[in-house]
C-alpha cells in the first residue's frame, strides 16, 4: 500500500512538472506583450522597457525557466504581473470562495444526483425515470454561464426572490477575514446578517454549478443500481421477505457505490472548471474569476500558478478516490 502511494506521488510530481513546463512555454511563446497591455496603450516605450527589466522578462526564455523552476522548488509561484502580488497569496485569497462554492455545489450534486438516480433505477421506464433523464440531459447540455444568466434574470431581476451577483449585499461590510471562508468568518464573528445574506447569495451559483454534477451522478447511479438490482443476491434478499427500502438501500445501493465514487471524485475536481464560468457570471470572488482575469491579461505567472494548482487538485482528488476504492471494496488491494 505504502509503495503504491509513493509511486502515485512520484507520478503526481511528474504530471505537475509537465503541466508547469507546457503552460510556462505556451504562455511565453504567444506573440503578445503582457507588460504593454498592463501598462496601457499610452505608456511610452521607455516605461515598458523599464517594467520588463524590473520583472526579468528581458532575459532569455531558458534563464526565465530555470529561475522559475528554482523558485518553484522553494514554494514560490512568482509574482502576478497584473495584481503585483505573490501568486500564492492571490490563490490563498481567492481559493476559499471557490471551495465554499464547489462544496455547496458538490453537496447539491450528490444529494440530488444520487436520489434521482436511485429513484429512477427502482422505477425504470416509468414517468419519474423519463423525467429524471430529461433533468439530467438538460443539466449536462446547458452551459453554466447560460444557466446562470437565466437564473439571475428570473429569480433576481424579474421575481426579486434571490439576491444578485456577489457574496454579500454591496453595502454590507465583510466580517473580519480570519480563515478566508466567508461562512466560517461570519460564524466566528457572530455576524448573523452577513451569514444569512451570504447563504442566500450562495443558492443560485451553487445550484448552477451543482446541476451539471447532479446530471452525471444521477446517470451513473441509475446504471449501476440497475445492474446490481438484477443480481441474484437481491432476489434472495427479496425472497427472504426483507422490506423494499432495506433491499434497495442496504444491499443494492452499497454495492452500486463503487462506480459512483469514481464519478463523484472526478466531478469534485471538475467543479473547479465549471467555477471559472459560474464565478464570472455571479461575480463570485474565487479562483475561477481570478483565472479568467489572468488569462485575459496574459499574466504569465498567474496562469502557470493556477494551472499547477488546479493540476495538483485533480491529481490529489484522483488519488483519494483510488484509495477510497480499497476502503469500500476489500477485494481491491494495491501492491
Amino acid at each position: 500500500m505504502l509503495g503504491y502511494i509513493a509511486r502515485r506521488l512520484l507520478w503526481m510530481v511528474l504530471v505537475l512538472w509537465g503541466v508547469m513546463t507546457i503552460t510556462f512555454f505556451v504562455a511565453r511563446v504567444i506573440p503578445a506583450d503582457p507588460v504593454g497591455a498592463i501598462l496601457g496603450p499610452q505608456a511610452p516605450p521607455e516605461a515598458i522597457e523599464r517594467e520588463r527589466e524590473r520583472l526579468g522578462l528581458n532575459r532569455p526564455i531558458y534563464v526565465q525557466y530555470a529561475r522559475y523552476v528554482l523558485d518553484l522548488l522553494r514554494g514560490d509561484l512568482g509574482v502576478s504581473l497584473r495584481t503585483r502580488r505573490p501568486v500564492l497569496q492571490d490563490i490563498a485569497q481567492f481559493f476559499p470562495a471557490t471551495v465554499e462554492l464547489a462544496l455547496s455545489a458538490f453537496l447539491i450534486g450528490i444529494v440530488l444526483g444520487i436520489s434521482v438516480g436511485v429513484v429512477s433505477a427502482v422505477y425504470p421506464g416509468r414517468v419519474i425515470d423519463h423525467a429524471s433523464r430529461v433533468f439530467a440531459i438538460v443539466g449536462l447540455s446547458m452551459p453554466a454561464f447560460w444557466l446562470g444568466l437565466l437564473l439571475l434574470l428570473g429569480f433576481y431581476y424579474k421575481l426579486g426572490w434571490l439576491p444578485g451577483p456577489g457574496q454579500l449585499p454591496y453595502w454590507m461590510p465583510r466580517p473580519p477575514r480570519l480563515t478566508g471562508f466567508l461562512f466560517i468568518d461570519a460564524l466566528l464573528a457572530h455576524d448573523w446578517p452577513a451569514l444569512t445574506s451570504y447563504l442566500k447569495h450562495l443558492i443560485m451559483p451553487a445550484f448552477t454549478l451543482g446541476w451539471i454534477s447532479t446530471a452525471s451522478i444521477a446517470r451513473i447511479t441509475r446504471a449501476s443500481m440497475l445492474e446490481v438490482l438484477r443480481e441474484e443476491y437481491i432476489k434472495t434478499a427479496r425472497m427472504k421477505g426483507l422490506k423494499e427500502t432495506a433491499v434497495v438501500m442496504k444491499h443494492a445501493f452499497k454495492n452500486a457505490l463503487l462506480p459512483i465514487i469514481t464519478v463523484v471524485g472526478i466531478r469534485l475536481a471538475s467543479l473547479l472548471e465549471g467555477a471559472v464560468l459560474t464565478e464570472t457570471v455571479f461575480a463570485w470572488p474565487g479562483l475561477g474569476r481570478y483565472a479568467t482575469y489572468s488569462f485575459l491579461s496574459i499574466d504569465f505567472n498567474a496562469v502557470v500558478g493556477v494551472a499547477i494548482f488546479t493540476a495538483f487538485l485533480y491529481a490529489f482528488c484522483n488519488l483519494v478516490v483510488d484509495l477510497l476504492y480499497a476502503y469500500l471494496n476489500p477485494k481491491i488491494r494495491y501492491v
Partner: protein
Amino acid sequence: MRGILLWCLVSVIALPLLSAPPKDTLIIGARTDIIVDLDPARAYEVFTNLIIEQYYDALVNIVMDQGEVVAKPGLAQSWEVSEDGLTWTFHLRRGAKFHSGREVTADDVIYSFTRSLSLNFAPIWILSQYVPDPSMIKKIDDYTVSITTNQPVAELIIASVVGFQGICSIVDSELVKAHATEADPWANQWLKTNDAGSGPFILVEWTPNERIILDRFDEYWAGPAGVKRIIFIDIPEPAAQKLALDRGDIDIAWDLLPEQVDLYRSTPGFTVIEGPSWSIEYLAMNAGKPPFDNPLVREAIRWAIDYDAIIYGIQKGAAMPGQTFIPAGMFGHLPETPFHKDIEKAKALLAQAGYPEGFEVEMLTSTHPRRVAIATQVQADLAQIGIKVNITQMVSAQFYELYRAQKHTFLVAGWGVDYADPDALAKPFAHCCTTGPEAPVRQLAWRNMYADCETTALVEAAAKELDANKRRAMYEEIQRRILHNGPYVVLYYPLNQVVTREVVKGLVLNPMLSFTEFWPVVKTG
C-alpha cells in the same frame, strides 16, 4: 449542530430578501479589475486615477466649470511664474490637513515629487519631461514651494501636470517614511493598499476584484463631502451592472454600453449623465508601408468613410463629430470637419495615387465589440472604392505589441488625454522627426512611421509659447497639417456616459474621466 442548520435555513427563507442600501452610502457598480496598485506614483489607468482623485489632493484642481476645464486652487491657493517662464512658485493653503491630522506643508510637496521621480514608474514622463530632477523642486518656506522647469512652459501645461492626481498627488511624508524599509525606501508596498492623502475621502478598504470603500473625511479643507461613504463594487459585465441598477442595488452604473444608456433616457427614476470626453477614436495608417506611404491614398481613405454611420449607427450618438486630434472643448481645438463620404472623390484620389483598381489590406482591431463594429463598417465603406479590407481581431496584449513595433499596416484604436493641455496630444499625434529607435517620443506618429520634422519643431515651440493666442494658432496649424497629411482618420470624440438613480444629484463628469470628483455628490433618498 442541527439547531444551527435549522436556524440558517429558517433565516434564509424568513429574512426580508433584499434590504435597501443605506441612504448616505453611494454605491457604484464598475469594472475595477484594472486597479492593481493604489500607489499614486504608479497609477496610470483612468479608473485607478479616479479612485486616487477621491482621497488625495494635488496642488492644483483640474475641474469642469461651465463647460470648460479650468485649473482651480487645490492645496496651493495661488501660483505665479517668473519673468523668464522657468520658475513657478506655489503658495500653499494653510490649515489643510492629511487624514492623519497633520497639516500639509512644503516638505510634503517636495517629498511627494521627489518620491515619484525616484520611483520612476510608467506615468512619470508626464512630470519628468519638464521637471526631470528632484533638485528642481525647492522649499522657500513652510508654505511656499518653487518648481523650476527645463524650458519655459505655458501655464496650462504646468497646472495640468502638477494637477495630475497620481504622480503629483501630495502624500503625507511622515506617514510614508514611517513605513519605508531598506529594501523599499519609498514604501511602495505599503502605499499600494494604504492611504496617505488629504482628499475629501479616506480609503477604508480595497479588496482587489471585489470592492473599494471610501469614507468621508470630515476635516477636508473645502468642507465635508455630500455622502458619508462610497462603495465601488466590481461588476465587470455591463449587463450585470444594468440588472443591479434596475433592482436598486447600486446607485450608479459606470460602464453601460451606449445602447443600454439610451434605454434609460425615457425611464422614470433614472438620470443619464453625460459629457464630452477628451479622447479620440481613430484609424491609423502606417505611412512607412505601401500603399499608405502615398499621402493621396490616405486622403482617399478619409473621403471614403461614412462617419455618420459610425457615430449614429455604432456609437448610438454617444459621440461628438470631429476630425482633428485635439477634441472639442480643449484649448486649441480646430473645429474643421472637411471630410464626409464622397465615393467619386475617393476613387479619383485613389486613381491619381496609382491604384485605380484599389488594393487589398489587413486591418487590425482589438476584440472590443465597438472596435470590431467600426472595422466592419470601414471594410464595407472601403469596398466601395475597390479596397478589400481583411479584418484581424486580437487581444489587446497582442494588438499593442504589433502597433508599438510599427508592424501593422492599418488599424482602429483610441487615445485618451494624459493631462489637460493640447501638448498631451500634439506630442503623441504629431511629434516625430525620425522613425528609428533613436526618436525621443515614440508614440502614435512614430508608430505610424510618419516623420515630419517641421511639424515636430512646431510641437516643441508650441509647448514653450507663453502667449495664449499665439499658442492657440500654433496648435491649429499643427492640426491642419495632420488633418490632410497625417496617418490618421479621426472618426469621433466619444462621450462619457453614466446612469444614476434619480436620487443621486450633483455628479458632473470631467472630460478627463479620472478627474471626476464625488465630493459634491449627494443622495436625496
